[in-house]
């Protein structure tokens, strides 16, 4: 089974419809595409967010995402994967990340998308800095994200 993988880290926005079309065009073996978009929120729990800056480790970020798309492809029967992560400064409402997974059936596409997002949050070298009403600070990692990623570990 061929599974094209697209991984991009970019400042520019992405067009979800265009990315889905690129994944599915001229193919008839795909029965399900799951799309997850991560969007800059206006508040983090109670604190208001004016803007968010995303920093990454060029080189390692792409390689780390590739390790996880490889693992997803080995675990689920996927027909295509796209991961786009934006870097730079974002205002609430703007896109940050896109994960697309394509498969013959929906279960594999849903699970692989969730797996990839859980690992993107805890293992891909990106860091968020928040600008709020009271100042600027680096976002702290959440234990709930580690727990979400841990459930995919094979025992």
């Amino acid at each position: 089974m061929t599974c094209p993988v697209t991984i991009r880290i970019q400042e520019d926005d992405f067009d979800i419809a265009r990315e889905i079309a690129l994944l599915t065009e001229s193919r008839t073996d795909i029965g399900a595409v799951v799309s997850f978009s991560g969007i800059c929120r206006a508040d983090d729990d109670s604190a208001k967010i004016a803007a968010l800056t995303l920093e990454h480790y060029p080189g390692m970020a792409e390689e780390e995402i590739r390790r996880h798309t490889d693992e997803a492809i080995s675990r689920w029967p996927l027909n295509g994967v796209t991961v786009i992560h934006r870097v730079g400064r974002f205002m609430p409402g703007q896109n940050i990340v896109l994960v697309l997974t394509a498969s013959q059936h929906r279960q594999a596409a849903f699970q692989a998308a969730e797996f990839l997002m859980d690992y993107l949050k805890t293992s891909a070298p990106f860091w968020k800095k928040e600008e709020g009403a009271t100042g600027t600070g680096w976002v702290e990692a959440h234990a709930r994200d580690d727990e979400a990623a841990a459930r995919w570990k094979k025992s």
Partner: protein
Amino acid sequence: MKVKYFAWVRERVGKAEETIEPPASVRTVEELIAWLSGQSEAYAYAFEKPKVIRAAIDHAHVKSDAAIAGAREIAFFPPMTGG
């Protein structure tokens, strides 16, 4: 070897990357953190909680007891918050 710093580790160290030559007695990631911490106040501040610091050797995550021999690039950064 080249060392890179990211996010608040970069801000505290005061630079994004540098080339260092630690003594041969520095063999592991945690020994390198201890050695750097002794170099200046800035490093000591960046690495004040060494258990929080994550490390990568040549673009792959490593644990604190990983050997640094042969590493081309070592990176130090806080827990990741992307996605």
